[in-house]
């Protein structure tokens, strides 16, 4: 029931977001055809504006856009006029998504163990080491790590390909460059969660009942301690998808980042709208899934 309500709430939410971005994108001065290579004659520009209904009043434009959106049509790109925004998203999104999920897996795969064992070894060497590494990772953004990995592993030692997105080998460096920052975040959350959990009463009860320490840590402790990580997972995936802009830029990966950045520079309004909406929908969906996972993992959480 709760989830139906949440689902119902997402629709007005997305509407608000779409009005907001539409207003922001449209009220910015400068049109999409200002920077064409050959300065278009006033007539051509007028025809173009007419063709894409850029002279209509705001609400008329918005309702037209919304009407097309209901059919799943994000409209034509105003810059790459032979392509629709749908085409471009369909072509570039899978690449960005794959990179994002690889980095997500990397972040969880490294962050969870580091955080877990830091907490288990609290106050001793593994903790100091793990905590330091986690904090360091949080301070190394992709735009620092990517050039370093690229210079060392690809250019200097020729171990891995320099750029592009073709074989699994091409994915290694971008995944690490994008994921390490989030490994640090996950490790810090996991450590804190584990420390809090191991002090809670149900653990004391379980210990008093004679459960082995391993069972305590892994079966009962971990399950609770991972909850903060789960609730961070939604925003994290969204950040991974946007954070990949820089990594895609450095490794020349044909993802969605370049289209977004260019759409801003070119005032390609339909493209910007389409991509912002895409990210908003993704983020809303991810948050829903995260809440759902939360309820499944934590028996104490009851949504009403």
């Amino acid at each position: 029931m709760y989830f139906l309500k949440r689902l119902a709430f997402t629709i007005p939410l997305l509407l608000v977001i779409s009005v907001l971005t539409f207003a922001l994108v449209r009220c910015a001065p400068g049109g999409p055809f200002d920077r064409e290579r050959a300065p278009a004659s006033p007539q051509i520009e007028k025809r173009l504006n007419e063709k894409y209904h850029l002279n209509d009043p705001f609400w008329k434009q918005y309702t037209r856009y919304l009407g097309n959106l209901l059919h799943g049509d994000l409209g034509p790109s105003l810059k790459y006029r032979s392509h629709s925004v749908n085409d471009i998203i369909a072509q570039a999104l899978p690449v960005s998504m794959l990179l994002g999920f690889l980095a997500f897996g990397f972040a969880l795969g490294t962050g969870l163990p580091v955080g877990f064992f830091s907490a288990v070894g609290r106050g001793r060497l593994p903790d100091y080491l793990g905590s330091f590494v986690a904090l360091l990772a949080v301070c190394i953004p992709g735009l620092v790590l990517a050039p370093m990995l690229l210079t060392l592993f690809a250019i200097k030692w020729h171990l891995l390909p320099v750029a592009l997105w073709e074989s699994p080998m091409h994915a290694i460096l971008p995944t690490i460059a994008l994921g390490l920052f989030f490994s640090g975040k996950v490790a810090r959350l996991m450590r804190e969660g584990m420390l809090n959990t191991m002090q809670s009463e149900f653990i004391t009860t379980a210990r008093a009942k004679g459960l082995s320490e391993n069972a305590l840590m892994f079966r009962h402790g971990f399950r609770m301690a991972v909850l903060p990580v789960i609730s961070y997972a939604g925003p994290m995936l969204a950040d991974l998808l946007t954070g990949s802009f820089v990594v895609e830029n450095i490794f020349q990966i044909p993802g969605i980042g370049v289209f977004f950045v260019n759409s801003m520079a070119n005032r390609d309004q339909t493209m910007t709208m389409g991509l912002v909406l895409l990210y908003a929908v993704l983020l809303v969906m991810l948050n829903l899934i995260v809440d759902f996972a939360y309820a499944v993992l934590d028996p104490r959480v009851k949504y009403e």
Partner: protein
Amino acid sequence: MSELVENPESKAESREPKVESPIATTQTVSRSSTLDSRQSPGQRAWRRFRRNRLAVGGAIFLIFILLFVLIYPFFSPFQPDQLSDAQFQPPSSTHWFGTDVHGRDLLVRLCYGAQISLLVGTVGALVSLIIGVLWGAIAGYAGGRLDSAMMRFVDVLYSMPAVIFAIVLMTAVEPWLKGWFATIGLPVKIARLVVLFAALGSVSWLTMARIVRGQVLSLRTRPFVEASRVLGAGPMRILARHIIPNVLGVVIVYLTLTVPAIILYESFLSFLGLGVQPPMASWGSLIAEGVGQINPIRIYWWLILFPSAVLVSTLLALNYLGDGLRDAWDVKGGS
């Protein structure tokens, strides 16, 4: 591991007791030797903070960096925009950090970029502080329908991808601001900076608003606030005299944690060419310039290593400082 699990009591004692908020500390008495009823919560936090060597080290490092980037350009023989024929010089005794593609001295440019990055980080965090504290305090103090409407709005913004929203906001506001700056006679050049402050500040205040609201909700039913109300103080006076001073600790903690986040956003935007514009520099744009020079033949490592190292060590120091403040004020959560 054995110590941790076999003797839970000794661990519980050795741990600093966690309290929900700094306000609560004033009420829980007789815990540790540092608790002296004559000390204010601020003094106690300061004592705890001083004992945290990493946090103090972070603070000292930050002061050093700040002084260095402000003072060094006056003593350097080079100007940040001074072109020369000495292109791509590796670090040497004349150019300590080497030179870039235009023969500019990297150290001076780095100082110049650091000024911008730190400025954006600090002012952006202050903007987020002002919006967040006002929003949270008003929502929490007003309560009822206004509160739920305001917090619903925060929820809506939470479900917008922050960076993307900042970029859209910037491109929408900038041309307008530039025109306005031109009419009132301010240099158009700084319009981009102002837009950066505003955009980054206005996507970073959400957590602050939520935390402040929570604090205010618990504060406003306290006897001293009610006493003040009985004595005839209006809501503005109560907010300014009683509520805001009491949430200050939490606010400072989150302010320190917001600065590195905004510095990261800024470097991200500048790297993509959406932040500060050349010839202005920031850490992000300097790293981007270094990346632009990556080629298989020669490696200009200093162009990437030095800006990266300064960025990373500053973020590290800010994080240590923020964590130290958080522990000192006993604030829970948030990362």
